[in-house]
C-alpha cells in the first residue's frame, strides 16, 4: 500500500515535467521559419493535405488554442502522420520500440554481467596487478567512441570470424540474443566501463565501512559478508548511475542501431531527422521523455527497495 501511494505521488510529480516537454515539442514545429503545415506535411504535400493539417492543428487559431488541440490530440494517441513512413507516427514508433527496449535491456544486463564480477575482483585486489589490468582494459573501452567499437566488432567477429550476423534482427527471444549480441555488446562495453569504475570505488568504500568490520568480527563467512553486506550497499550508487545514464544509453542506440542496421527507435530518430519528418521527431522526442521518466521512477523504486532509509520519503 505504502509503495503504491509512493508511485502515485511520483507519477503526479511527473505532470509538470511532461507539461514542459509538451510545450517544447509543440514549439519545435511552430518556431521553424515558414509555414508549420508545410513542415509537418512535407514540401511535396498537396494544397488539400495542407488544408487538412491546418484544420486538424487549428493553425489559424491563437497559439493557446493550438496547444490545447495538440495536447488533447497527443493524449488521445494521435501524434500525427509520419511523412517518411506514410503512416500514423504512434504506430510506427510502437512498431520499433520493442526492438530498442530489448537491445537496451540486453546491453544493461551484459554491462552488469561484465562489470559486476570484475569490479569485485578489482576492489578485492586493490592496488595489485589484477586491479591495474582490469582498470587499464576498461580505460581503453571508455576512451573509444561507441561507433568505432561497433565497427571493430563488426569487422572481426561478424565479417571475418562469421560468429555473429552483420546486422538486422531475428525472430523470437533466443534468436535475437544471438542476432543482437554485437550491438548490445557495443553499448555494453562503454556502459560497463562506467559501471565498473563506479562499483569498484563503491565496493572499496564499503569494504572499509565499520559495519563490514563488524560483520567480519561477527565471524560471518566471507561470501555472506560480500553478498549481503558489501554488494547491497555498493549497488545503491551504481543503480543511481545506471538510471542517470539512461540518456546516454538512448543516444548509444542511435549510433549502434545505425551501424548494425537494427530497426529500432534509435535509428528511426536519425532517419526522421534526416528526412525532416517533424511529426515523427515530435513523437519520438515524447517517447524518449516517457522512457527516461519511467526509468527514473524505476531507479527510485529499486533504491527504496535497497535502502530502507529512503522508504519514508
Amino acid at each position: 500500500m505504502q509503495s503504491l501511494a509512493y508511485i502515485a505521488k511520483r507519477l503526479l510529480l511527473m505532470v509538470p515535467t511532461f507539461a514542459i516537454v509538451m510545450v517544447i515539442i509543440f514549439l519545435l514545429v511552430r518556431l521553424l521559419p515558414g509555414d508549420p503545415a508545410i513542415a509537418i506535411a512535407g514540401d511535396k504535400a498537396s494544397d488539400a493535405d495542407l488544408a487538412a493539417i491546418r484544420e486538424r492543428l487549428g493553425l489559424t487559431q491563437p497559439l493557446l488554442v493550438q496547444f490545447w488541440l495538440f495536447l488533447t490530440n497527443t493524449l488521445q494517441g494521435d501524434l500525427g502522420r509520419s511523412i517518411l513512413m506514410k503512416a500514423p507516427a504512434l504506430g510506427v514508433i510502437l512498431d520499433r520500440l520493442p526492438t530498442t527496449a530489448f537491445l537496451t535491456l540486453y546491453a544493461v544486463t551484459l554491462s552488469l554481467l561484465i562489470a559486476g564480477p570484475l569490479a569485485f575482483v578489482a576492489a578485492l585486489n586493490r592496488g595489485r596487478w589484477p586491479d591495474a589490468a582490469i582498470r587499464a582494459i576498461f580505460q581503453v573501452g571508455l576512451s573509444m567512441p561507441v561507433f568505432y567499437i561497433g565497427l571493430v566488432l563488426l569487422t572481426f567477429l561478424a565479417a571475418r570470424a562469421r560468429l555473429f550476423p552483420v546486422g538486422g534482427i531475428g525472430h523470437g527471444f533466443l534468436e535475437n540474443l544471438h542476432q543482437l549480441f554485437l550491438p548490445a555488446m557495443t553499448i555494453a562495453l562503454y556502459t560497463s566501463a562506467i559501471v565498473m569504475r563506479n562499483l569498484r570505488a563503491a565496493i572499496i568504500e564499503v569494504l572499509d565501512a565499520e559495519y563490514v568490520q563488524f560483520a567480519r568480527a561477527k565471524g560471518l563467512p566471507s561470501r555472506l559478508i560480500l553478498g549481503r553486506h558489501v554488494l547491497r550497499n555498493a549497488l545503491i550508487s551504481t543503480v543511481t548511475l545506471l538510471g542517470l545514464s539512461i540518456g546516454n544509453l538512448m543516444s548509444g542506440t542511435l549510433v549502434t542501431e545505425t551501424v548494425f542496421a537494427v530497426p529500432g527507435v534509435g535509428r528511426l530518430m536519425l532517419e526522421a531527422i534526416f528526412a525532416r519528418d517533424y511529426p515523427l521527431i515530435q513523437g519520438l522526442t515524447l517517447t524518449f521523455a516517457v522512457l527516461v521518466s519511467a526509468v527514473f521512477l524505476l531507479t527510485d523504486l529499486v533504491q527504496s527497495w535497497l535502502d530502507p532509509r529512503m522508504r519514508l520519503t
Partner: protein
Amino acid sequence: MTRDTILEVRNLSTTFARAGRALPAVRDVSFTLGRGEVLGLVGESGSGKSVTLRSILGLSRHYGTVTGEVRWKGRDIASLSERALRSVRGREIAMIFQEPMSSLNPLLTVGMQLTEVLKAHTDLGRSERRRRAIEMLDHVGIPSAAARLDDYPHQFSGGMRQRVMIAIALAARPQLLLADEPTTALDVTIQAQILDLILGLAREYEMGVILVTHDLGVVAQTCDRVAVMYAGRIVEEAPVAPLLSDPRHPYTMGLMRSVPEGVAPRTALYSVPGTPPALDALPQGCAFAPRCPSASAQCTATDPALNRLAPGRSAACHHPVSLAKGDAA
C-alpha cells in the same frame, strides 16, 4: 593473579604502509587477560589501542602487517587463516565498535544482523534463532523487543543502537569482549548505562573484557587492570587502584593531571605539553622523551623496556616516578 589466563598477547606489532613509509601503529605489545577480567587499554588518539584490539581479532591484517602471537586458550589465533578464524570471531571473542551509527548495516533489519550471528555459530533453527534474538534484545534493555526485530538501525536512537550492537556481539555467548570506545559517541547520561550493561553482562556470562578508552574516569569505574599505551607501546601496566593513586610512568601522570578534578573554576586546564610523535617519524629512544619532564640523555638514546616494578606492576621508563612513596625505583 589468581584467575587462570585466557588470553595472552605476545610481542604483537602492527605496521601499516602509507605512501611508501612504514607506520608502526602497534609496537611489541604484550599482555595477558584472566577469565572474567576487565582490562582497560588507555591512551590518546593514535596511540594504537584500537589497532591492538583489531589485531587480536585479525581485522588489521587486511590493511597492514601483523606479527607476534595472540594465544587464545593456548593456541595462536594470529596465525589462523580467515576461514579458521571464523569459529573464534563472534563465537569466542566478540567485538563492539565506537560508532553505533556506522557499525550497524543500514540496509538490514536488526533482527537479520542478530540472527545471522546465531546462524553462523549455533545449530538453532530459524524460529529458535528468532526467539533467541528477541531474548537478547530484551536482555540488553530494548523495550518491546519482539516488535523491533524488523526495524532498521536508523529507527533506533544512539544509545539503543549501542545496545543492539552489544546484543549482536554477545548473541553467541563469547568468553571475551573487545570493546572499542563503546561509549565515546554517546551522551554522558547514556554512557554510564551502557558501561553498566557491559559490566553486568560480563559478570553474568563470566566474560573477559578489554575496554579501549581515552577516559580515565571510565577506567576508574570499570576496570580491574589498566594498560596505558603511548605511540604504539604499552608504557605502564598495573591494577586500577594503584595505577590511579600512584602512577609510575610520567605519561600516565600527565594523563591523570589532565583530568579536571578539584580544580578551581576559570583556571587553565593542564594538558601534557607537546603532541604525540608522528608514527612514521618516531624519535630514537623513548617516544615520550620529547614531552617528558624528567627525560635524560639515556631516554633519547635507548627505548626503555617494560620492566616489572612490583607484583602486577610494570612501566617502560628509565626514571619511573612515585607520588606515594617518593622514591624512584
